[in-house]
């Protein structure tokens, strides 16, 4: 009874923390929106509008009201799912974002698979060979991935693998030739092309995806490698590793069955967090590869100062981050027997 009670209290406390963080997030985006140099009224009515119309829209937007009232109004709008209209496209911002999100998620998902597929084995190798040459090699390799300006690496990779060797597709999600051929069902091109049975489009999509996803994956693998290494080192020093050896298990078996088995939950949480940070790289890599996703939507709106769109994008990134944090916390509680 009392344990359940405590758990309920901690859950409530956590919910409160999240609510406060979300409120802070909204406040931050509101402040950023207010600070923007672009005149929101002018953006709506256009340059040639008469002062009367300007005044009318000004009042309509509530810009004559005190700041806190404007914030409450913004809060109310957001809570009812109204994120405003994009000046550039004239459509509700949230609709735009939902439209571009699948492209980014496709990219990010592939990237995280590559990042984890690279980072986890490398981290284990480094830990097992601590302070010997494989460890040093892995360290330099992953620091390199962490240090490269991804927009630049993207260009160099395009020059080499697309223009030079012709191994992969260039910019965009598929060849120009195929654009518009696949009906948009889920927004995920790989899935849509399979559903409609157009395998050549699928191949083209993979061909275009592989380069940006690999680069993003490599850059995120640095973090995954480092965390894997340090988690493994923690486990390798534990006494139960000796127990496993005494039982007659080989070194490889103890490493994979016991040490690695014990860090799986931690790894899942790390990968979840790395998935969120991919959004950062995506903003840059999407610009280089003309990838019609969230990152490109954000940057193109930034440059023209489309306030509603930028605020909502920032808000969504924040919410995704909070959600991923929460998710990794939850996974930890669910799968680690010690937290029960």
């Amino acid at each position, binding site marked *: 009874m009392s344990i359940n009670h405590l758990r309920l209290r901690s859950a409530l406390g956590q919910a409160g923390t999240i609510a406060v963080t979300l409120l802070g997030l909204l406040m931050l985006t509101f402040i950023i929106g207010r600070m923007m140099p672009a005149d929101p009224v002018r953006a709506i009515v256009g340059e040639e509008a008469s002062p009367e119309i300007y005044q009318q829209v000004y009042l309509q937007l509530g810009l004559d009201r005190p700041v806190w009232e404007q914030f409450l109004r913004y809060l109310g709008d957001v809570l009812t799912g109204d994120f405003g209209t994009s000046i550039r496209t004239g459509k509700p911002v949230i609709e735009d974002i939902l439209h571009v999100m699948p492209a980014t998620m496709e990219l990010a998902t592939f990237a995280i698979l590559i990042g984890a597929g690279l980072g986890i084995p490398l981290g284990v190798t480094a830990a097992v060979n601590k302070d010997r040459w494989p460890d040093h090699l892995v360290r330099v390799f992953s620091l390199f991935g962490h240090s490269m300006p991804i927009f630049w690496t993207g260009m160099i990779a395009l020059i080499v693998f697309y223009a030079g060797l012709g191994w992969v597709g260039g910019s965009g999600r598929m060849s120009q030739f195929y654009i518009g051929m696949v009906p948009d069902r889920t927004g995920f091109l790989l899935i849509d092309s399979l559903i409609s049975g157009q395998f050549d489009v699928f191949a083209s999509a993979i061909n275009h995806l592989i380069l940006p996803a690999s680069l993003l994956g490599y850059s995120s693998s640095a973090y995954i490698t480092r965390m894997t290494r340090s988690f493994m080192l923690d486990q390798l020093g534990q006494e139960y590793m000796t127990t496993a050896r005494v039982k007659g298990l080989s070194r490889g078996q103890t490493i994979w069955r016991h040490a690695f*088995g014990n860090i799986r939950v931690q790894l899942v949480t790390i990968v979840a967090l790395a998935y969120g940070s991919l959004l950062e790289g995506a903003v840059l890599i999407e610009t280089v590869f003309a990838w019609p996703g969230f990152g490109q939507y954000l940057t193109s709106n930034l440059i023209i100062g489309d306030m509603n769109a930028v605020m909502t994008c920032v808000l969504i990134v924040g919410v995704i981050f909070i959600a991923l944090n929460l998710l990794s916390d939850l996974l930890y509680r669910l799968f680690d027997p010690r937290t029960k």
Partner: protein
Amino acid sequence: MEKPILEVQNLCIRYNGAPVDAVRGVSFTLGRERLGIVGESGSGKSTVGRALLRLLPGARVTADRMQFEDLDLLGLSERQMLKVRGRRMSMILQDPKFSLNPIQRVGHQVAETFLRHFSVSKAEAKTKTLEMLAAVKIRDPERVHDLYPHEISGGMGQRVMIAMMLLADPDLVIADEPTSALDVTVRLQVLTILDGLVRDRGIGLIMISHDLNLVRNFCDRVLIMYAGRVVETLDARSMDQAQHPYTRGLLAAQPRIGGPRQPLAVLDRRPEWKEEPAQ
């Protein structure tokens, strides 16, 4: 005397990068008996145990002879050692809080020993595991089988450890401070269980401890180690006839109920004991 299980002659161990040997010229033989190795921390007693299992990757181990039954332990490849560890020679570690894998179920960990050495089905291994858990006097083996290490007490954890290490029916068990992490009240209980199993199954036991009283009650013979060297070997019953001043010092430093109420003797440590030839 029957054929010994283990013969060690002139065992020397040096950790990589260390200026001196951690263990120097240790020799002893072990039959189907219970041998205690006593010494203070740093005397090299645990190092000897691990060297027998060849679990000292960062050390150089040399000996004139290290014969375990029909096997020359120093000559075996790592591959052959895998068949020795757990199956013919095993070790009970000090603290079940650390020596059991915290996120695997107890039963699974015990059964792993059996599955490693015998090609049996999971169900057979489970039956065997439950039997063994019962043999270490765990009252409700079915329930304990599915618990995690943090859900059981220290005493029960150490009984699980014993079950795990005796499951494959080894000929030699090394117990490295098996009770020092336990509450005083359950120490005796755990030791009695271990002692009973060792006697019933005719297993050779090496009990490594810093506790002279415990060793003298549960062992047949006792090696006293000081600074990596065996200073004296004694029959457990004739402990009071110890010759070496270090052993006498250890004995004098033991409090006794009903003994004189003076301050206990302070242990004397003389540098020349480090150099004195063993035996």
